């Protein structure tokens, strides 16, 4: 380790010398070299985290937090870069047959878990087997693994590069990964840190400390450690950023606006959380269908996204967002209040929403959910429909879809957790309790579009708006390039003027010359 460090130091010195020379001659614009050391302080909104991917529920809000933390300690087989290219991680090569049913992955040699044990194909199989869909079988092969799919799966790489598909080992005393960091300690508020043995304790967990993994196959990360504090409300995170008490804070829609006004460096993802109205009941009756259609036509998604959410959200006319499907704009998002009123007049009997109010369960802990639900109520009222919001009791942590549905409908928040549009649609179809006649969805975009269109016609789920993630960083955080789909990639981050790690010092001068303007 020390040898490696010294060699690295020598290389760094000569490299910096060369750079300093170049900077004197070349016009301004040369990139600054990263600095080692320092502890990145991160504040996240979720109150708890779980690093065990098998316990993550598709579509749940906690998925993002779990995934971001898992990225620190685990690797995937492949990852997707910002240019649409799959980059190797644990897998170095991959290929498939003509039908894209049988995939072979060659594993990187010499990869070690954080406890020093070598990664084997069996470990990869053990990690992936409980995570993969039932139609996919994973087996170890010489130097790699084979994934056999029951149906053509040209989107397997999208699947593996996102979601819960991390490679880890359950050593009995905790989860071990091959990532850039190791979970060092977990502490609750007021209690001394425990040595991390477990995979993250839900409920009382408040602070996690990840230290660098010296055995990392991709090299030591620039940071010495990352301290993650959970359960921090966005407003507090913003204040802490302004006071310099944290380096990276997860914000909300409202606090993101404020952050921009204070000149903090802000990041907004692609729309990653879909807010939709999920109806109880099968909705087969004529009145039910009319009611749902009337609600769909009366809700002004554009106004919700543009005005109410201050242009931070996108109106959602379909289940998949534009950034994921590329054809979401083909779905109509315009409201038609007059048609909604007509449908209301045609409704007979005492369907909820007519004489008695249709009760919409809302997550009491989410101000955004309440705001959207209230707007749905107001818009529906304009069409003569009576809706009423009801605060729902919280589901168990990690459950998808928002609070328990105790009314006639529920405003659910669905997190897009996969890069595979097909996978996302299938998950949403499960959530909407919809199974089309043809069963398995084809990979073709046309088929997906048709599937999505039919799912819309079922009206079990009514998409409203899609809201991005927000975060802000302190000025000393460098090289942070999160993916639009929510990956934070903290492993590549370095801190300006960070503390020198373990005797390793840089001769780098301050980044004034050649600094990128």
């Amino acid at each position, binding site marked *: 380790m020390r040898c490696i460090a010294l060699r690295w130091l020598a290389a760094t010195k000569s490299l910096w010398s060369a750079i300093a020379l170049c900077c004197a001659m070349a016009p301004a614009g040369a990139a600054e070299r990263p600095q080692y050391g320092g502890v990145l302080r991160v504040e996240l909104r979720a109150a708890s985290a779980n690093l065990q991917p098998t316990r993550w529920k598709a579509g749940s809000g906690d998925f993002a937090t779990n995934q971001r933390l898992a990225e620190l300690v685990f690797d995937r087989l492949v990852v997707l870069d910002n240019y649409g290219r799959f980059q190797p991680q644990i897998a170095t*090569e991959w290929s498939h047959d003509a039908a894209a049913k049988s995939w072979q992955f060659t594993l990187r040699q010499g990869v070690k878990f954080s406890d020093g044990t070598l990664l084997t194909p069996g470990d990869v199989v053990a990690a992936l087997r409980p995570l993969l869909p039932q139609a996919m079988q994973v087996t170890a092969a010489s130097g790699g693994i084979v994934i056999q799919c029951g149906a053509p799966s040209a989107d397997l790489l*999208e699947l593996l590069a996102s979601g819960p598909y991390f490679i880890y080992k359950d050593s009995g005393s905790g989860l071990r990964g091959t990532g850039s960091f190791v979970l060092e300690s977990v502490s609750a508020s007021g209690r001394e840190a425990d040595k991390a043995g477990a995979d993250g304790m839900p409920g009382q967990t408040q602070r996690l400390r990840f230290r660098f993994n010296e055995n990392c196959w991709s090299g030591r990360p620039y940071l010495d450690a990352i301290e993650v504090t959970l359960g921090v409300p966005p407003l507090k995170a913003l204040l802490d950023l302004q006071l310099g008490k944290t380096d990276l804070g997860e914000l909300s829609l409202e606090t993101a606006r404020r952050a921009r006004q204070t000149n903090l460096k802000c990041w907004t993802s692609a729309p990653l959380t879909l807010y939709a109205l999920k109806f109880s009941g099968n909705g087969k009756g004529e009145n039910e269908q009319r009611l749902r259609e009337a609600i769909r036509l009366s809700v002004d998604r554009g106004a919700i996204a543009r005005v109410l959410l201050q242009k931070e959200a996108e109106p959602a006319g379909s289940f998949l967002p534009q950034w994921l499907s590329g054809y979401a704009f083909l779905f109509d998002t315009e409201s038609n209040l007059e048609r909604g009123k007509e449908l209301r007049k045609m409704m007979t009997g005492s369907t909820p929403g007519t004489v008695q109010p249709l009760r919409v369960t809302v997550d009491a802990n989410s101000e955004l959910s309440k705001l959207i639900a209230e707007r749905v109520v107001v818009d529906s009222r304009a069409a003569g429909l009576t809706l009423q919001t009801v605060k729902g009791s919280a589901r168990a942590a990690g459950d998808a879809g928002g609070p328990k549905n105790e009314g006639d409908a529920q405003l659910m928040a669905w997190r897009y957790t996969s890069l595979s549009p097909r996978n996302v649609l299938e998950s949403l179809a499960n959530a909407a309790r919809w199974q089309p006649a043809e069963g398995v969805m084809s990979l073709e975009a046309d088929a997906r579009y048709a599937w999505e269109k039919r799912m819309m016609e079922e009206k079990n789920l009514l998409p409203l708006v899609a809201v991005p993630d927000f975060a802000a960083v302190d000025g000393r955080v460098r090289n942070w390039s999160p993916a639009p789909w929510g990956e934070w990639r903290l492993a590549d981050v370095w801190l300006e003027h960070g503390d020198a790690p373990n005797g390793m010092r840089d001769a780098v001068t301050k980044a004034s010359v050649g600094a990128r303007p």
Partner: protein
Amino acid sequence: MTTEPVAARPDALEEGMERLAKKAAALPHERRMLLVWTNHSALSEKRVGRLRAAFVAQMETAQVRLVQGETAPALRVAIEQTPTQIVFTAAVPGEASTSFAIEEVARAAAGIDASPGSSVRLEKELLWQQEAKILSAVLLPASADGRKQLVVLTEEDLLIYGGGPGNWALENTKLLPGPRQAQRAARGQLIIATESSGRLGVLLPGRRCEADVADQSAVACANAAAEWPGGRLMALPSCGTQTWWLKSDGVDWTEQDRLLLRSAGTGRDVAAVGELGMAGPVISISAGESAGNATVVVRNLSSGTYEVYRVALACGD
């Protein structure tokens, strides 16, 4: 070494577009349709042009008549981009309703042009500064002996400097004919004539002038309605065949401005691929010594001086 199942193929996008055209042609459609083309991806203009041609050709093969400049039902083709795919959609108007066709091509298969131009950036170099107002400036291409010339337009005259950054020497001064410009409305733009680098065009309010920096001839002006350029179109072969617009952010003269670089052909709502902060408002943007350069005049709000910068495109890490 990585073996991707879908190797990058230069024609992958075109093939995808042809498949889309076949699908669209097979859908119920009007006899005559007006092609409306939209690109929301990071593909270059050139590439998008090729795709359009491929689509039209395929449609013609399928004997679907596409018109231009006429009133007809619109056949809308859009190019979108997801993290892994380039998505082509066609909305085909039929007699009763509109049908849709969708086709996808993996971005990895699309080749290097499919990648966003985020590797291009701007770099600046201070050439000249003075207290007197500078309306515009242009750094002329170097002559055969490597000597460069910097032409500075003030409210009253053209100043021609020779030398290089840090050691410019005044070589010539040419007075601007006609009445002196009102201070509040003083404005000017230097334009390099393409056929001869020694000749310059000078845009003034209500006038267009010409001057030759190589000799002592006077500046000749004529009345004309000036069309002020909104920015500078730049290109750099090492950055690819794409062209970019260099424009300022458009703040007022009391704030610090930014230079923004956007792909040519994209709208304002597309994020800039590069930006350069300046110490004050950008007064003018003119040509540079090459297509990958521009000469920018900025007023430094801290010092009050007028500064001339050479702004260059750079690519790669």
